[in-house]
């Protein structure tokens, strides 16, 4: 299996505060990888570093291209779609406008139109609310919109920051089911940041555990799940 993403010695921070102290990880094409860890471990910052929305150093090679030093909009144009914390939808714009914005860098009009139809088929609730302001949707609907918006890019890699955050368990289950579908049907690689370790390990093939800006542990998800000591120490279940 070829590596889609290779991260080496990645450091990142905000002003004088360094959050990532040199992490290494890789992501296989077509797989789901999870980054776990407590609050403040650097999970969100890792995703921000991949998108270059935070000051970074080190090396991030995506699909043969070095991302460090690139402008965010150019990283996106390489096929990296990010659903940030807070979801990154445009609350004042309509559902359909949000989807069109997701495909902003694409030139194939017919493909965009058919992808919008495809999203509506996958998320019928969004179709019902296509003309509605995105800010008026429920939390679950907004998360679905955020994921659809990201998929409109036809990304090679989908970055998700805590897709379960603030949602009811039933809605979370639905969203994780759809994520698996997206990975299997569309072949999109997924990098998932989660606090809900049990959920994330069920979905992911491989996981990295961050602790204060370092990788404390990594391995196949089922191995981590089986290791009771690790589960108790790091994952709290």
């Amino acid at each position, binding site marked *: 299996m070829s590596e889609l993403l290779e991260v080496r010695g990645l450091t990142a921070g905000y002003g004088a505060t360094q959050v990532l102290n040199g992490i290494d990880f890789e992501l296989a094409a077509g797989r789901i990888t999870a980054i776990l860890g407590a609050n403040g471990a650097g999970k969100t910052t890792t995703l921000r570093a991949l*998108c270059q*929305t935070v000051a970074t150093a080190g090396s991030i090679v995506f699909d043969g291209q070095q991302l460090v030093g690139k*402008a*965010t*909009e150019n990283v*996106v*144009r390489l096929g990296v*779609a*990010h659903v*940030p914390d807070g979801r*990154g*939808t*445009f*609350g*004042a*714009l309509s559902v359909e*406008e949000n989807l*069109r*914005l*997701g495909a*902003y*860098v694409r030139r194939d009009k017919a493909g965009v139109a058919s992808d919008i139809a495809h999203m509506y088929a996958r998320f019928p609730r969004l179709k019902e609310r296509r003309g509605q302001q995105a800010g008026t949707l429920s939390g679950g609907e907004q998360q679905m919109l955020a994921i659809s*918006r990201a998929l409109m*890019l036809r990304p090679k890699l989908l970055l998700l920051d805590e897709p379960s955050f603030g949602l009811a368990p039933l809605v979370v289950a639905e969203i994780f089911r759809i994520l698996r579908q997206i990975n299997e049907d569309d072949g999109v690689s997924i990098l998932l940041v989660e606090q809900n370790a049990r959920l994330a390990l069920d979905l992911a093939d491989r996981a990295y555990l961050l602790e204060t800006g370092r990788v404390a542990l990594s391995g196949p998800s089922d191995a981590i799940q089986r290791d009771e000591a690790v589960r108790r120490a790091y994952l709290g279940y």
Partner: protein
Amino acid sequence: MEALLHQIFSGLANGCIYGSVALALVMIYQSTHHINFAQGEMATFSTFIAWALIQSGWPYWGAFAATVAISFAAGVAIQRIILRPVEKAPVLTNVIVFIGLLVIFNSLAGWIFEHTIKSFPSPFPQDSALASVYFSAHDLGSAAVMLCVLGTLYAFFRFTKIGLGMRAAALNPESARLVGIRVSWMLALGWGLAAAIGAVAGMMVAPVVYLDPNMMSGILLYGFAAALLGGIDNPWGAVLGGFIVGVLENLLGAYVIGTELKLTVALVLIVGTLTLRPNGLFGKAVVARV
């Protein structure tokens, strides 16, 4: 009654101009949260370009189109070259840059085109069947031109991909970058559009107030009052604010305070709006999480 109607209609005609200046201010405010104090002087300079083109024998509408195009390009260039380096600087830095631009454009206009007052032609006929005692053909014509500008802008923002991208960049620059929008270029486009709108306003007002380097200074104040009154983040509010300011200014000037104190109306409106209703009549209250 006749006189009152006359005052109202000529107020509406002025209101068109104030509305378009307000619209230009709103264009830049929406995406940068700055008020471009140089908007008026940029418009005056554009009008001088149109004047020079017409003097050298260009037909009116040819000169009009060329001026709008030149102003758009100049607006984009000003943002790219002068404002981009201070994009992340504090507000005060930007204010100083705006004042610098104001002085530069004012002095350039005086230096190149001299301070003598010039007459500027109106593209609309002196007498027309549509004109009446209440308003001239130029009043009607400039109102029509402004409505065209508004309609075009609306269609641009509503129906084109770049228009959608500009709205997204203004609403949420961070998220806009994450869908691949080049936010900084969207700001430049906003400056270009504002400069082009200002140029149209300048060319429409010049036949009425005559052309000199300080032509727009008073009008910018009314435009500012209009934008604030309508809500500085609302393009429709800006235009409506323009009409309200135009009519108020005329009525108060004619019946209450006299023409010498007309400009005070604008200042009173600005202070009044800011103290009583800071978001304007149609603006949205900004709620921030802290």
